[in-house]
């Protein structure tokens, strides 16, 4: 998510392919280095929607469709 722009696709790839995985990891780290928060939306077996915050690429489920980055929260 980028303020004023909506969401932008930063990188796409299959984490099972080494080259793609390297790109995804690099993109992930760059976003976190910039201070962004990362969340993985999920759908549970009953259809309930959930989200998991992740702080390392290894925490991203292998079957995750996407990771959403957004600016960190601050007291408003």
């Amino acid at each position, binding site marked *: 998510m980028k303020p*004023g722009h909506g969401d932008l696709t930063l990188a796409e790839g299959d984490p099972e392919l080494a080259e793609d995985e390297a790109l995804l990891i690099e993109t992930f780290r760059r976003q976190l280095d910039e201070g962004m928060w990362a969340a993985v939306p999920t*759908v549970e077996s009953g*259809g*309930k*929607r959930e989200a998991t915050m992740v702080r390392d690429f290894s925490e991203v489920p292998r079957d995750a469709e996407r990771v959403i980055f957004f*600016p960190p*929260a601050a007291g408003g």
Partner: protein
Amino acid sequence: MSTAAVASLSIVVGVLAAVAFGPDLLALARRRRPRRTHRPALTALPDPGRELRAERRAEQLLLSVLGQADYEAYRALGFLHAYGRAEQGREPSYGYLIYPHKPIVSYDVDSGELLNEHCVSFPDRSDPGDEFGERLPDADDVLAKWMALRGDERGLIRAANMHLPGRQLDPGHVRRDLIRMSEWTGRSLPASHGHADVA
């Protein structure tokens, strides 16, 4: 002295005075005239379509993350809802109303009593020079709050400034929103089956 002679003399004196003092008076007037030291600023007009496109993209993202039922609830009500974490095997005792660019309001599920306003924002710190970089589109703002609440409720609440209800939002309005949400859920129960967060 005739009137004509007086008039002629006045004209002659006036012309002589203009010749004698004119340049000095002109210079004085120029000195007193405020100088324009700065060129007018060239202001870039914001593109009104850009904000609208961003909002539409954000709504599509919201739809893809929350699903049709919760997305429709957001469109109809203007806010999202999430329950707080519950202890194992127990129903959640409190929930949150998530407004775009307004505080999150926590409430007691049983009594409907409003508990707190949690003021939180997601400011863009990456590009301070970007005039559009101030805030997320509305749908992105509520989605970010929702994801942070679901993924790290304590972290988000810790980051927020907490106030008693009524600081920014009219408590009466929020209570009416709770009723509207309850009515909406009653109407859309079959469609929202399985989406426990639409109360």
